[in-house]
């Protein structure tokens, strides 16, 4: 009979889920910091982020039941990366004009700087989450021990 112990990949996927959740939270905080700079599709972005987090969780959990590099985990990771990227890219695109202004003619925009800081944290979390998911794809998620 084979028993499985969790390996590094499992924990990396879980970490990616946490980072993704943090990315969603900071995206929302940035959105709420200034109503005039609210993201246009925040509901969609939240949904994408949450689904991305769930997929990262699925990737982690599926490895326990289905073993290393199983198809469910593999597809879940791809989906999670894609959704995190969408969340990241969509919010970057909507922050370009704000950021350009902060670093030039609008340096005194206090609310804008708060949005910027929240956004940066969100983006870092999402980028790191994606990188972590990539790394988790290379490594084992469980150690399989065979017993007599």
């Amino acid at each position, binding site marked *: 009979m084979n028993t499985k112990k969790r390996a590094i990949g499992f924990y990396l996927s879980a970490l990616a889920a946490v980072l993704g959740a943090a990315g969603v939270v900071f995206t929302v905080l940035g959105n709420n910091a*200034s109503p005039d700079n609210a993201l*246009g599709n925040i509901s969609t972005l939240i949904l994408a982020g949450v689904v991305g987090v769930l997929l990262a969780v699925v990737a982690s959990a599926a490895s326990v039941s289905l073993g290393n590099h199983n198809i469910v985990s593999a597809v879940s990771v791809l989906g999670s990366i894609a959704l995190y990227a969408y969340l990241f890219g969509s919010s970057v695109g909507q922050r370009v004009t704000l950021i350009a202004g902060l670093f030039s003619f609008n340096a005194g925009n206090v609310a804008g700087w708060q949005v910027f800081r929240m956004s940066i944290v969100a983006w870092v979390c999402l980028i790191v989450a994606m990188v972590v998911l990539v790394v988790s794809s290379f490594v084992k998620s469980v150690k399989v021990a065979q017993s007599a």
Partner: protein
Amino acid sequence: MKKSNRKGLWRGLTSATCFTLSLSMVLGNVLEANAGTIDTYLGTTSEVFVSENTTDNPLYNKFTPPAELLNADGTGNSNALISAAIDLNRREVGEGSVLLKNENNALPLDSGSNVTLLGIRSHSNLLGSSFGVKAQGPYISLEQALSQNRTDFANTIAWSVGSRGAAPAATISEWKGDEFDFEGAGFNLNPTMIDIYEKLGETYIHYENEPAAEVYNPGEPSVDEIAGVNASYKDSFAQYGDAAIVVIARPSCEQVDYLPGGVAEGLDFENGEPLSLTKNERDAIELAKEASDKVIVIISSSASVEIGSLKNDPDVDAILWIGAPGCYGMLGVADILSGRVSPSGGLFDIFTAYNMSAPAMQNMGKMYYTNTEEVITRSGGVLGFTPGAYTIEAESIYVGYRYYETRYYDAVAGKGNATDPTGAYGSTTEWNYDNEVTYSFGYGLSYTDFTYEFAGEPQFNISVDSETGAPSAFATFNVKVTNVGNVAGKTPVQIYGQAPYIAGGVEKSAIQLLNFEKTGLIEPGQSEVVSVVVDLQYIASYDETYDNGDGTNGAYIMDPGSYYFSVGNGAHDALNHIMAAQGMDASKMSGTGNADQAYKKDINEDFISLTMFSVSKTGYKISNQLPYADWNYYQPGEVTYLTRSDWAGTFPKTYDALTLTNEQLIKNLNGQTYELKTDDDTSDILWGVDNGIKFHEMFGVAYDDPKWDKLLDQMTLEEAMYIFTFGGPSIPGVESIGTVETYMIENAGNGVAVSLNATKDPDAPWAIPATDPNSNWHPEVFANAPIGASTFSPELMYELGEFTGIESLFTGINILWGPGLNTHRHAYNGRNGEYYSEDPVLSGVAAMEFAIGALDYGLVAAPKHFAFNDQESERGGVSPYMTEQRAREIELRAYQLAFEATKYDTEDYDAGMRGLMTSFSKIGSIECTTSEGLMTEILINEWGFIGYAVTDIYDDVDLWSAVLNAGTTCFDTRGQSGFYSTTTLESSSLFRNLIEGKGLSANFIDGDRNLQLKLKDAVHKNIYAWSVSHLMNRYNSTTRVESRMTWWRGAYYGAIGVSAVVMVASAAMYILSSKGKKEEEV
């Protein structure tokens, strides 16, 4: 490799390439949505105009650079272009620098003079503003101009540091282009001091472009620190003691003001204020006295610096103001110091002994309503402006010299308690002109002397259009100017005027500039007769209480009485001549007057009627349009405006804690000025009609030609909304009329802010190719605006506009957000370097000449900011309150002059400036962008404006419908591009939170008839402005846009492609490797 490892490898590669694919796709989207801006900064061209040059539809034949800037084959000659810029900047500063003091034959200096330069700004020059009118690229330093004869552009590149801690950066990365010979001053400079300041520059770091600061430190080293570098530095004075030149600088830039008392601690500012000299600066001047018997102080600033002590110091021999001279302007300074050019500038502002003595300074800075949080619901917008900021401009029309000269006149006349010490800074017992003023507006010295006399009687041409009632009233003054000195020179010819003041009546300045010209170079003993045409509407006064008899109030009136005109060296001199002609007590006057330089004209109802100017030149009946500009309109009696009938009793107090109580006032401040309709019948408004007209056919078609209506009817409502919503720099295409998306607009007032190698029109025959060694030359090289004003030369102002127009041909920009045209309300406005002057006629003529000159080469100048952008502090939300008289006679007159451009009207052509940028600020409680009084009644109906009227960047985007209603023609949406695809009316983040509680959409005004009609008018104005520009060089029936591959586009395309291929392959391998035996062991 174990099977599990192979699976992991393929799975990992699949994930990794999914990551790169996803990022490439989303970031590629971001890049495309901002492609225009990215192209500008990276020098790439992602989309190009493509038009085929045919015999029937020739291209590039409407506006071309002058032949001397082209090679024989019609291609651009970058060397010639840069040479021409050097020459113009040199002449600009040579004629705009103002010699304020020159005693003991201090200046000019002989060639070969051995000179010591002192003050760290003599080594680290101030050339421009870190934001606004930046001096970009390689430059010629003061040291080079004074001692060398060839540029060293490769090693002399201007740097800039932003306000609020932004990091410093070089304005261009490197220069590998041409070097240029020039004729320097031929001085020998003290190398010891140069070395010392070079070393001290490691501690006192300065850049060629710097900002003002709310707590200012000029960064001048102490004498001890100088000695700390080289203890025996004074030994060098003996060898370099022919003259000692000290340079003092005060920077200017967008975003930040100087503030009252805003000085860094421990620097012992002379008057405790940022525009007075620190101890170290004063010590540098004392050092100069040790270095030489000949002490010259150079002031590099955009505002009045408090140099009264220098004026009165017998050991300071000469004072020269040089503005922020731009990249090559130090050559002009060298020309003056060496005597190659006799100075001929006049001051752009009055220089006071204490800038705080200006009545405007009593209400300057950051002031907020006491109950902002309770009643102001409108937020600060996407730019995060602070709600609730205001300033009461209680000084009325008494801005700058108007205050000092009028109070002086009344003091001599013994009227209005003018000598009361209230408002005096120079004394506690009386107000005395000599204590308060250092140098008068318009004042300037030369190396020679001139006499001025009226040559005959002025010619008056007065008429009224019998149909419209539009007035035409001009007086031509012929002034004979004689050079009675020993050196050839030019001089301004400034005509001033005085209207009769009735105590308790409408406020009138005792003296005001009416117009000016400049002589040519007059040789010693020679004369020149200069004609100066005065538009008499500018000596009329706006009386907002005047009852028009038709239910309206407010008109320009010409009170009957004695009007005086004079020619003088500045406002004070001109006033003294008038006072002499009036027989006033010479013993009480400051300076002397010559009655022969004044002319008296009695004006009565038969000559010019009281209400002749109550109709505008367009035939429009004038009445009050800005009642809400006055605080007292909504909350009566709370503000007292300054009146010359009671200087002491009405000298402004500081209104820094006003409370909002009036409901309408609050509603205005909350942006509730327009109600969007949703169910109007708009079925008769034509959209999407096929009339078969294309944009390229509209070149030369007059604005009121019916062909425009047919063209506009072709557009769909959605297309028109795109044109109004996205007003630049990138403008959407309009398929129905054959236009394509184009990046067509840029800043600035001192040159076009696009490098040659980033031209938006790379297919122009004269476009400088990237392979040209000069291709990274940046055209923003000229001096700050006050220098242009101080030339008092309409010809030079025109030439600056022409050259900027030429630059625009080389850079493919056909609309310019510039020059700056706000008023120097006081010296502390940090952005004064971008605006011309405190005087509206000087400012207006400068802008008019610039704009008309620019149009010669197809550049539409859109000066900023219309209007009342009087300070940088809280510039975004600030409400300046003022009387309508003040608004019209001071703030708006400069714009009026340039929009009417009467000088350039012909029988068949109504000349005028064809663009403007509105202001961040409000006028009273109403945003300027949404003020119908300002944008429609005054601007369009009274002045006949036709052209491009854009908001400031992202301004009032929440008030989309009100902005359209008011007459503004589009929004500044810098960064937005990729219209109809990556950027749509619905998706643009700027327009998601409109005051109506919803976002913008293509159906937004389906039910608002008024706005649809206003939209047609706005689009008409925009497209008309394009049609008079060199954009038409590039258009014919074959015009289209083609995408071009840029390195950044290629990078993300490549990343997408490679990622996709590798991802699919890796996924396939992962699946294949998943078949087979199950995983067996750890």
